[in-house]
């Protein structure tokens, strides 16, 4: 048997759903082999994971906390990748949104404005911060032709340094300078109460707080869908992603569109950053072992790729991957194999990437034509 790979003319719908599901199944199966090979019981490990992610008391609360930022970074990635603009700087753009958003919260909240106004201002400033940071690789790409992949990646580290600097190496506006604790360990200045995002509570598992950020993420998904599927802008950008030449010929202003996509992507990531301040951390978290350890930006790329860059699928996948991440955090230490979550995530992503070939191409098996000269039929398998 020999096989050839040929491009599909149209992609069947069921495959688009089957490939991600198959990837998860294969990912779990391969990880089970890793677990078995190292002398762990895969079934009990998976049961522990599932319990800690969705079933045990308070687990859904934690899963939402882990999933909300992933929804933002996933949407930010999807917004750009769909258009073949590879912004992998969601990580840094999230930090920048957290910084500018916290500044707005500290300043306006400190002056005693109404909470709704303060929160709106934080959301706005968070988007601006993320978008501004994304504008740097955007401008370099649009006007100098520098690969946005590498520039946005490099800027993540610069943003991380700035974040650490603001809390650890300076007496900045964001840093808590008063009180005993401030002299022991540097922390961010706590946000005033009007700048804290209070979400509604649902009475399941002894009370779950729905983060306001999760609501904003769903809203952002809807806006993205409308923008890309129902508006002229989305169509033009899609043409641009598919064929630069065709877009130019049709009169699309390429530079503006590239920059606009980067700004949208960065703005969403920045919103994820300010949601960290307002929803969860209630201060700017500059600790290298805090926000920066979570690598939300990079995991967001996993989320977006698994969702095949569909905004609604991103929200769903973010919830699932958030559950996995939360379970990994909760179970860390104890008798649970550490690092397993990364292994599972990685293998699922490998499968999804490989499965992409099946969506785009058809694999056809061609029986080898047997010439009469080769007379050894019993040797065939």
């Amino acid at each position, binding site marked *: 048997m020999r096989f050839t790979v040929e491009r599909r003319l149209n992609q069947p719908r069921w495959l688009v759903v089957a490939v991600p599901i198959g990837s998860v199944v294969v990912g779990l199966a391969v990880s089970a082999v*890793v677990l078995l090979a*190292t002398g762990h019981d895969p079934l009990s490990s998976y049961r522990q994971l599932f319990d800690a992610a969705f079933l045990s008391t308070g687990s859904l609360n934690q899963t939402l906390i882990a999933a909300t930022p992933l929804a933002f970074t996933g949407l930010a990635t999807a917004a750009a990748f769909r258009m073949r603009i*590879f912004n*992998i700087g969601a990580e840094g753009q999230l930090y920048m949104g957290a910084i500018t958003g916290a500044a707005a919260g500290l300043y306006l909240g400190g002056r005693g404005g109404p909470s709704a106004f303060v929160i709106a201002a934080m959301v706005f400033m968070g988007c601006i911060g993320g978008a501004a940071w994304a504008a*740097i690789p955007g401008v*370099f790409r649009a006007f*100098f*032709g*520098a*690969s946005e*992949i*590498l*520039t946005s*990646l*490099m*800027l993540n*580290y*610069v943003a991380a*340094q*700035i974040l*650490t*600097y603001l809390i650890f*190496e*300076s007496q900045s506006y964001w840093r808590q300078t008063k009180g005993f604790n401030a002299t022991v360990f540097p922390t961010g200045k706590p946000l005033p109460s009007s700048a804290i995002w209070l979400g509604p509570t649902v009475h399941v598992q002894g009370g779950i707080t729905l983060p306001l950020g999760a609501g904003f993420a769903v809203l952002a998904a809807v806006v993205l869908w409308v923008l890309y599927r129902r508006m002229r802008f989305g169509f033009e950008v899609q043409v641009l992603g598919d064929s630069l030449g065709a877009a130019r010929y049709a009169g699309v202003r390429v530079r503006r569109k590239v920059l606009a996509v980067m700004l949208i992507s960065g703005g969403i990531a920045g919103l994820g950053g300010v949601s960290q301040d307002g929803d969860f951390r209630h201060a700017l978290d500059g600790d290298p072992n805090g926000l920066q350890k979570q*690598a939300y930006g*990079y*995991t967001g*790329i*996993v989320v977006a*790729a698994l969702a095949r860059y569909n905004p609604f699928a991103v929200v769903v996948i973010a919830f699932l991957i958030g559950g996995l991440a939360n379970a*990994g955090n909760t179970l860390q230490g104890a008798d649970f*194999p*550490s*690092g*397993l*979550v*990364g*292994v599972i*995530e*990685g*293998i699922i*992503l*490998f499968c999804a*990437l*490989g499965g*992409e*070939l099946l969506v785009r191409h058809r694999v056809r098996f061609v029986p080898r034509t047997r010439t009469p000269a080769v007379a050894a039929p019993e040797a065939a398998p």
Partner: protein
Amino acid sequence: MNNSLLVVLIASGVAYGTPLLFGALGELLAERSGVLNLGVEGMMLVGAVMGFWTVQRVHAGSAVALIAAVAVAALAGAATALVHAFLVITLRASQIVSGLAVTIFAGAAGLSSYLGNDLNLADVPASHTFHAFFPARMQNWPIVGPIVFGQTPLVYASWICVVAVVYYLARTRPGLNLRAVGEAPGAADAMGINVVAYRYVHTLIGGALAGVAGATFTLAITPQWVSGITGGAGWIAIALVIFAFWRPELCLVGAYFFGALQALAPELQARNISLGPTELWTNSIPYAATVIVLVIVSSRGGRRRLGAPAALGVPYVREE
């Protein structure tokens, strides 16, 4: 004289720069063949943990154990790179997503951490480590003592690698073919060069060198295993390839420059010298400088002179 700031900085720049140099040389070979591998950090960590494991388990003389450890680290790095190679070369997957997937799979929250825990490697000192190769008398010679003679054998091995890669790219037939594959795979294929084989081989060599880079951490710089011990060196190695305009000899200079920057902040603090927010700028310069270099390289005149391999990041599909 050997305690002057400049000498100390250059000497530690060479030491800290060595893993960057190994990683960058490997990434350079992969990129010259047209494969962008963002999984360097993950491959380094797998090399680091497997190298450390070998040195703990092999009961032999120091030299044998260390050589075996470096070999195992290289194999482990290459094995990790094989996943990336298969996905992007054979299955034509997105190189960016695949590379990041390798880092997530193998990185600080993935396989390397899993192995480190499972093989009980944390919190134990290495049973053998690389030491300075030359006798103490030579290390005390002014200036060249600490910089040239105070280094571990891995440093001298990295110099041999640089010379080998320079010679390979510039003076050998396979090196020329490799450059052709990275610049114009279609033309290379038409010439009868096996594009797929070239890309596989060089991605794997890149992984092996990244594995050695990881072992440099666990066997020489900080001889122990801690999850995430490379601390982002893989990303600096990727930056370094660009910073060095895809040239091995410039990788050497860049690696020692970036290495010295890492040593600068603690060194200045120890000497009570204040140069503003030192950590901020010493840690940011490698990345910021790389962004600037990228912009220059991408501008019209620069691309032809210094440019990246033209087919970098583009899967090769033969028209059939």
